[in-house]
């Protein structure tokens, strides 16, 4: 490998360049998109478990009337962290895990456009998450809700020593996480537009790549809006400005506008990756092309645009007036159209297909079914009079869990089962996988189905306790039981993973008879991905290499086509990949220090800023790849391969 050669080179920058290829240090300095993808996946799964434990505690408290598990203060902290965690530390980064690992593979590239920027974005995400969670040891989790409405976020509720507030951690933590998302979106937009293999025109890209492109454009334009809103909160908190202070002429409703102008596109940032994953899985397991590929693509783009025009439907209860409410009610009903188009395309894909009910397929079907329920209850909120009844009740809680859990999380699990063999070279067990699916589906519906009824009965969101005579007891108990069944299903998944990883790497390059480029290379892929950059001739190019249609339109195997060529050996000789680097981590480490500094002591912030600056300069001055060894040394270093 190229890395070994560098041992002989003189150090060209501040430090000797990292050269480990195995062990912890190689993961810390890696710039390989596949390793970064795995890091994203593992980290977000750890946060998924933390967010899940928070949810279980909330459900335990609500299992029976007059719950005594948590007090009101801890309850506030836990629901704030549950929402913040699941959105910013689970669904977004878990989608990013798939972007990182599969986008270069699916477009036939060796890496993303900016490998070190990619590493930087992972470290910023991890450190931002740790920063947010460190608040627990410094006075308590943030407790103002995941939407941080002013004045809950601007005044010192949950006050800490030194005139700080728990919500400082929330605002600064999200600001740091926003940096991770923003740099990642610049990276992926560039990668997808610029790094496609020859012949892969836009209309030949897999749908998952398309949805990723839309998501990253959404991130690109949504993150600065939340950044400005968070800056305003920070300025109000740290310097006493008047953005959300009514006495100074400020207006808390501005926060809501800006938060939801980010927050509604965010909803599509969360769901579009899952839609993309499902659009890859359904054709594979129906053995048919995706029905109406252009419609799926263009409806995704339409959602990307229309997602900006519906934010105030989160604010019908604010009292913006009948004109604004009507306009946003209409736009909200319209955005259901492109979503519905996708549902029909998925059904059309299944129609007449030779369906194999493997675990990824089950999760995808679960996604479609649950997402339809969530979508329909969503349309009921578009009717302003309905919304006035439902808003801030458990009906809303039920709705967004059907979309974000029944939708996004089911879709992400589908993707995990589908792509696990490609990532690790091992197939997850089918029997445990199916058990996981059924437990999760049943537990999910038991948990969130009854919440529709609780909401209509008038149980408000964020109640930390109710009385027996309120009549909420039975449904709450069922929901709590359901939540523990979900937890059990996650345990089954972890057992499945553990068992799969005791087995050797035996997955073939193409275990599902797939359609896209990632299945043409060995599992797990070599560091350089493609020995030869492929040339693409059609959508689902790999499928067409394997199958041709006969007269009746059925797919017939092409003799000597397909997967055999996938395994063809190439030792990667002469392919140069970017070298590992310390600097992304160094630059990222400064950011949480700046955060602590703003809360506690300005000197810490100065140290953090210096650290980031050193990281950035070191990064800028070090070449991304060490020069060819032949320029410096004799050709004997080639033997070090």
């Amino acid at each position: 490998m190229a890395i070994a050669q560098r041992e002989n080179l003189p150090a060209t920058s501040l430090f000797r360049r990292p050269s480990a290829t195995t062990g912890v240090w190689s993961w810390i300095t890696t710039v390989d998109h596949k390793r970064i993808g795995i890091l994203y996946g593992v980290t977000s799964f750890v946060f998924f478990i933390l967010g899940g434990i928070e949810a279980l505690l909330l459900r335990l408290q609500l299992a029976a009337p007059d719950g005594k598990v948590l007090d009101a203060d801890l309850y506030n902290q836990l629901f704030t962290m549950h929402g913040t965690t699941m959105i910013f530390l689970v669904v977004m980064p878990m989608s990013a895990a798939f972007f990182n690992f599969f986008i270069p593979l699916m477009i036939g590239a060796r890496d993303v456009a900016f490998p070190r920027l990619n590493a930087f974005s992972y470290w910023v995400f991890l450190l931002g998450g740790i920063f947010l969670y460190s608040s627990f040891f410094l006075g308590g989790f943030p407790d103002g809700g995941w939407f941080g409405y002013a004045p809950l976020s601007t005044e010192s509720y949950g006050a800490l020593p030194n005139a700080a507030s728990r919500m400082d951690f929330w605002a600064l933590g999200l600001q740091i996480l926003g940096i991770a998302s923003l740099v990642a979106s610049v990276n992926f937009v560039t990668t997808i537009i610029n790094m496609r293999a020859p012949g892969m025109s836009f209309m030949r890209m897999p749908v998952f790549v398309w949805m990723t492109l839309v998501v990253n454009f959404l991130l690109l334009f949504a993150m600065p809006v939340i950044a400005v809103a968070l800056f305003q909160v920070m300025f109000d908190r740290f310097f006493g400005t008047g953005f959300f202070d009514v006495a100074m002429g400020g207006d808390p409703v501005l926060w809501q506008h800006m938060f939801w102008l980010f927050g509604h596109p965010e909803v599509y940032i969360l769901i579009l990756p899952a839609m993309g994953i499902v659009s890859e899985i359904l054709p594979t397991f129906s053995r048919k092309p995706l029905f109406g590929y252009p419609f799926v693509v263009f409806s995704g783009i339409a959602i990307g645009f229309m997602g900006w025009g519906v934010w105030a439907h989160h604010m019908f209860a604010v009292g913006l007036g009948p004109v604004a409410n009507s306009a946003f009610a209409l736009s909200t009903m319209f955005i259901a159209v492109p979503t519905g188009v996708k549902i029909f395309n998925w059904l059309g894909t299944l129609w007449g297909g030779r369906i194999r009910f493997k675990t990824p397929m089950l999760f995808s079907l679960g996604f479609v079914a649950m997402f339809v329920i969530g979508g329909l209850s969503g349309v009921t909120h578009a009717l302003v009079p309905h919304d006035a009844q439902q808003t801030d009740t458990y009906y809303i809680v039920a709705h967004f869990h059907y979309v974000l859990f029944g939708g996004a999380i089911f879709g992400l699990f589908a993707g995990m089962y589908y792509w696990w063999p490609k990532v690790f070279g091992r197939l997850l067990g089918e029997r445990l996988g199916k058990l996981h699916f059924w437990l999760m589906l049943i537990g999910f519906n038991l948990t969130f189905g009854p919440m529709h009824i609780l909401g209509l009965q008038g149980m408000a969101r964020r109640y930390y306790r109710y009385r027996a005579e309120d009549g909420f007891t039975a449904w709450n108990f069922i929901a709590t039981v359901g939540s523990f069944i979900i937890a059990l299903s996650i345990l089954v998944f972890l057992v499945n993973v553990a068992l799969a990883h005791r087995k050797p790497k035996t997955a073939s390059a193409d275990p599902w008879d797939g359609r896209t480029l990632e299945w043409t290379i060995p599992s797990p892929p070599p560091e350089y991905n493609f020995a030869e950059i492929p040339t693409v001739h059609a959508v689902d190019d790999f499928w067409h290499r394997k199958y041709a249609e006969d007269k009746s339109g059925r797919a017939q195997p092409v003799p000597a086509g397909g997967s055999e060529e996938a395994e063809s050996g190439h030792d990667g000789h002469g392919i140069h990949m970017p070298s590992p680097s310390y600097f992304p981590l160094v630059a990222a480490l400064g950011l949480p220090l700046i955060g602590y500094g703003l809360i506690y002591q300005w000197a810490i912030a100065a140290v953090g800023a210096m650290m980031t600056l050193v990281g950035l300069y070191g990064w800028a001055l070090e070449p991304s790849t060490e020069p060819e060894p032949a320029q410096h040394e004799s050709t004997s270093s080639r033997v070090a391969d």
Partner: protein
Amino acid sequence: MATTEQHVEEHHHTSTGLDNKKMAMWAFLGSECLLFGALISAYLLYRKRGPGKHPADLYDIPFTSVSSFVLLMSSLTMVLALSGIQRGDGRRLRVWLVATAVLGMTFIAGQVYEFTTFVKEGMSLTSNAGASAFFVLTGFHGTHVSIGIIMLLSLVGLSLAGKLPAERSLAVELAGLYWHFVDIVWIVIFTVVYLVPS
């Protein structure tokens, strides 16, 4: 981050023919539009709100016109710097980069003067929502200009160290894109915030 992915690129074709780094810079600047859009919207919403003096009561339009002119001229010198490196003339590159940085610093000095004057006349960051929005908006712009100045001076340093040959003119071009963007944003701010009567 001027010289980062140079080595990879030498071997790499892009699908659009546009360099990766340039594409990334355009994407980033697109994102910045929303940043300034949000800040300008907040200012327009708040400019007359709250007790005490508001920014529009204190504007010194002739003074700000001059400093705006200085900033716009820096776009011209930036173009001359780029043309310098493209002709392989390192000295010209450095002269015009320094000129651009000096014009930027003049603008920043003008902003510092303006801010201190406003504070002396009784309008600070914490006077009212309008003042807060004004200082945060123009302060963010000033921060952007300052980051641009650091970039320009870093390029001067690289050039002096002989690490900025004509083949690397892209680094100067990217800094230029950023610099022009910051100038254009100032035109919008100067027009919408200062000139349009409230």
